């Protein structure tokens, strides 16, 4: 990626194995899906050409726009919440604690457990009245008849909490790897010069950590757009479609209601949307991400 060196065509050979897999199982299928989206294609009937009309009818469907909104709400909350929490834990752990490795592994545990198993436990904890969350709230004197997964907005909140719980250990790990790359000399020198911990973080660690932060933000965003298993396990997109994100909408349309053509159209929009968002993130990163090397 640096242009000053001479071209090295052997690099293409290094790229070949990965590219074959990507092209055969991701890019070609994506093109097929883009093709399907122009056909009325149900159950496996003979597809009929309908042009862009499935996109048009999608734009006229309330549920589509609702799921776009829900996808964004979910992604923004998970990206901001998850990034902030993991940054907090990473910096706390990195500030010279002895049990650093132990804590890091413990926070990582939820990520290692099968999603299907942990989401079932969370479902139990979210049960109205008798679920653990409500019992704790009740013990603390709050109202404890909250239908966590039975009310559209709270169901989304439940999903967000679960997803952050699930993934913050992994992003903490990424942040800590990034922190390891920052030399301690700079922060120590600043400490000698009398900078407070707060100043040291914002003036030195934060800018030097920006490549990692950028990476975590991009990955978190893509992952939250792609979230499926927990939605499937916790809420099945309900209640009243309150947690139907675009991914879930695609699944439901294709595999519960058999509208392959329409599901393909949603998938194409989904792809373009997150492509654009990632593009924006990269564009911003060029101005604000600071590369040490």
């Amino acid at each position, binding site marked *: 990626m640096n242009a000053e060196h001479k071209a090295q065509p052997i690099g293409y050979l290094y790229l070949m194995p990965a590219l074959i897999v990507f092209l055969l199982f991701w890019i070609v299928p994506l093109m097929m899906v883009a093709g399907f989206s122009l056909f009325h294609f149900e159950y496996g009937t003979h597809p009929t050409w309908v042009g862009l009309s499935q996109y048009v009818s999608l734009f006229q469907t309330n549920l589509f726009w609702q799921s776009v909104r829900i996808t964004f709400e979910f992604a923004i909350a998970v990206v901001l919440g998850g990034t902030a929490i993991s940054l907090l834990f990473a910096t706390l752990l990195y500030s010279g604690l002895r049990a650093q490795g132990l804590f890091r592994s413990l926070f990582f545990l939820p990520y290692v457990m099968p999603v*299907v198993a942990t*989401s079932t436990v969370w479902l139990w904890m979210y049960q109205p009245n008798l679920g653990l969350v409500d019992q704790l709230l009740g013990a603390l004197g709050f109202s404890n008849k909250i239908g966590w997964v039975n009310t559209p907005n709270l169901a989304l909140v439940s999903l967000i909490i679960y997803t952050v719980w699930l993934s913050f250990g992994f992003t903490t790990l990424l942040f800590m790897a990034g922190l390891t790359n920052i030399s301690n000399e700079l922060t120590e020198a600043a400490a000698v010069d009398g900078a407070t911990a707060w100043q040291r973080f914002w003036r030195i660690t934060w800018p030097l950590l920006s490549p990692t932060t950028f990476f975590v933000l991009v990955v978190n965003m893509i992952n939250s757009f792609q979230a499926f298993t927990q939605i499937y396990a916790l809420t099945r997109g309900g209640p009243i479609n309150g947690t139907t994100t675009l991914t879930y909408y695609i699944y439901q349309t294709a595999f519960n209601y058999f509208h392959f053509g329409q599901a393909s159209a949603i998938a194409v929009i989904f792809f373009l949307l997150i492509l654009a968002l990632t593009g924006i993130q990269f564009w911003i990163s060029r101005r604000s991400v600071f590369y040490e090397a």
Partner: protein
Amino acid sequence: MIRKTKRFLTYTFLIASVVITLFPIWWIFATSLETSRRAYSFPGALIPQLHWQNYRAAWLLAPWFRFLANSVGIGLITTVLALSTSILAAYALVFMANRWNKPIFGIILATMMVPFYSIMIPDYLIVRDLGWLNSYTAQIIPFAANGFAVFLLVQFMRTFPKELRDAARIDGVTQWGYLWKIIVPNLIPAITTVGIYLFLLSWNAFLWPLIVTNGPQVQPIGCTLFL
């Protein structure tokens, strides 16, 4: 004194966070070890009771060892393959200047944005045409390269000083030698992270294996956990 108090507060906060974080996981074991009727009663469920028939009942129903061995095998092979292809690709993108690197990196990133459930049917058609239905291959090869893995490795390799590469080249170190002798050993933490990620991705798979396989001979454990 202030430093000690600070340290004490940090530890207290971290330990409290660990307890909250791990509670649901601990609960899985607590509830599965007792009869299901008490699963809801809190704090009754806080004290695990050993009712092993819960485990036995589950175990007797399926060839668990086979499922488990399949999961581990598929996971390990997928991880090793995907790590290899991703390390090679990331190295080429960072250290071998080529005209098409940027668009190729773009395509690799784009694979992360494809909603998998929409390409499941095309992928099934491809796997069927390759004659891979009901095999390990169908569960391994489509995941033998990973966009996230390439992206992460590229990020880490970029932080490597370029001067080091130039110095090594003057000393006559080949690209291949530089990759395996210098880059990989220095990137072990990053590679481990990616490795865990890849293994878990394979381990947590449930719908794809269920669709491309027919029976416990080649199925991973995820197939039995469908909700």
